[in-house]
């Protein structure tokens, strides 16, 4: 990372030790409030999830979460989310790059378009995607004669997850790229680095943590996505059912405890994955900051 960014970050701990005045009241109060607020908004609702699963015995819990259909659904959910987040990682970075480095007519509109998946009800996204990608849709009809089906299968799921995850990478990378000093690139160039070397050794380390954050958010968002996916998938068990769909199916059969048991599994896997990504991110920050 550039010296300009790391220098103040290093200065902060020394300021802390001296007990410099903070804008907001002391640590005790703010932390207390943070925990209180998080409890009400996040922890208590999640705790009810946990309590609902207590209705099951350990055996029932295990049978529910390890049922073949449930396991297949975890694989589809996390697999498709991973692919979608990786695609967003590459193309989100590209879009951020174009938005930061170039000016062109209609740039403001393109910039606003990026946020659309944030605002759109996901069911609308699902309906539009099927209209577009179905065998009789604008794009789908080009692929149908080749025997390639774009929706009502796993491919459709990935498309939907790419769509809803796109803004995350763009919006996390964009500000970092804006702060990035072009002189560093020029310096690298004047020292004889190739374009690829400049990208790989100068730019990528600087935007790395932001990229990872964007990736993690796009991934997490995709894991929980339901609305758009059910429209573009054919929802066949063992093949193209996502976990939220399995949860919904259990609720429809009034099996609350079973539904929350599966939800718990998702929660735990997502939490562990996000923790891993956070760890990776701080490791990278340290490495590039040193």
């Amino acid at each position, binding site marked *: 990372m550039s010296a300009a960014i790391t220098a103040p970050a290093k200065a902060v701990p020394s300021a802390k030790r001296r007990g410099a005045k903070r804008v907001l009241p002391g640590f005790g109060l703010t932390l207390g409030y943070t925990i209180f607020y998080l409890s009400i908004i996040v922890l208590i609702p999640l705790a009810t999830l946990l309590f609902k699963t207590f209705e099951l015995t350990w055996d029932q819990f295990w*049978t*529910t979460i390890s*049922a*073949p*259909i449930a396991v297949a659904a975890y694989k589809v959910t996390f697999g498709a989310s991973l692919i979608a987040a990786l695609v967003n990682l590459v193309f989100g970075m590209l879009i951020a790059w174009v938005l930061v480095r170039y000016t062109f007519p209609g740039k403001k509109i393109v910039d606003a378009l990026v946020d659309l998946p944030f605002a759109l009800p996901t069911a609308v996204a699902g309906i539009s995607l*099927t*209209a577009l990608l*179905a*065998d*009789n*849709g604008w794009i789908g009809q080009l692929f149908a004669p080749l025997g390639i089906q774009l*929706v*009502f299968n796993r491919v459709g799921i990935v498309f939907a997850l790419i769509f809803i995850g796109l803004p995350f990478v763009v919006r996390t990378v964009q500000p970092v790229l804006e702060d990035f000093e072009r002189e560093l690139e020029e310096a690298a160039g004047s020292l004889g680095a190739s374009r690829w070397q400049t990208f790989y050794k100068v730019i990528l380390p600087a935007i790395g943590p932001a990229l990872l954050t964007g990736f993690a958010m796009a991934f997490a968002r995709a894991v929980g996505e339901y609305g758009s996916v*059910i*429209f573009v998938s*054919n*929802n*066949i*068990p*063992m*093949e193209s059912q996502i976990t939220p769909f399995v949860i*919904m*199916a*259990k*609720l*429809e*059969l*009034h*099996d609350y405890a*079973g539904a929350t048991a599966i939800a718990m599994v998702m929660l735990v896997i997502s939490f562990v994955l996000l923790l891993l990504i956070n760890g990776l991110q701080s490791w990278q920050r340290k490495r590039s900051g040193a």
Partner: protein
Amino acid sequence: MKFGGFKSLVVAAALVASGSALAQNQLLNVSYDVAREFYKDYNTAFIAHYKKTKGVDIKVDQSHGGSSAQARAVSEGLAADVVTFNTTTDVEFLAEKGVVAKDWAKKFPNDASPTTSTMLFLVRNGNPKGIKDWDDLIKPGVQVVVVNPKLGGNGRYAYLAAWGQAREKGGSDADAQAYISKLYKNVPVLAKGGRDATAAFLQRNVGDVLITFESEVVSIDREFGKGKVDPVYPSVSITAENPVAVVERTVEKKGTAELAKAYLDFLYSDEGQEIAASHAIRPRSEAVLKKHADIFKPIKQFTVGKYFGSLGEAQKTHFGDGGYFDKLFTEPKK
């Protein structure tokens, strides 16, 4: 005025506070998705009927959604006065929770189901694949669009109809299971609800045949039928009951018991049955049914009870975790 908004807020709050007095003449009917248009017409007729016989002005609100989701909302406190569903299990669920009477099925004639429906096929115009009966659905190369039985009454009845017809033709449970497994191999999309299945079949051009409620088949045929799709009446199908019940929990609190009962009773009247028929929902009244023989082509029907005990039992053995439906997809392919 600046205070205009505030004033109306106070008035609204006062109205809510006195709501119990007002609400006595107000009903909330919580119902399933595709019954929206039917109950819109029915409510108008009932309000006029009540005014004429009792001289009282009333108001009826309606709420529609997936039958099971609606049942869940009511069990969790949605103040419905009456529920009108498309699967008995949803009312049974409310009975277990003590929200409706335990003996709800005995409170009104015909097991508290004033109307029924059945499952029919819809095929593409001219029936290019020559689909006439259930056996045509399992031929190789035929694609069948159905609702996921885990997600809705529509899908459950389609599955049970397919299973039951094999029994009706003299087959054993094993034969029925073999039929079902072939059928679901021909399913390209397991839709999440009746309307979703219709959209996939009609707008996305998925599949050669759609299995859905008669009311849906007829209304699609009326709206889009010309030159697009044709209804097909199989040799035999299932009777799908539309159960109704008074929500005791709410009516006790609001004092609407009498009104709620009158509302559901009227469904059995000639006028109520007539309105149902006009929406392609099968009336129980033989006279009304005969009058609309053009809509309700005669079809041999069997009840859920005949092969499955009850919908609740069918739910356990067929649609629950590890039930027959799950096995279709988890058992190794032969």
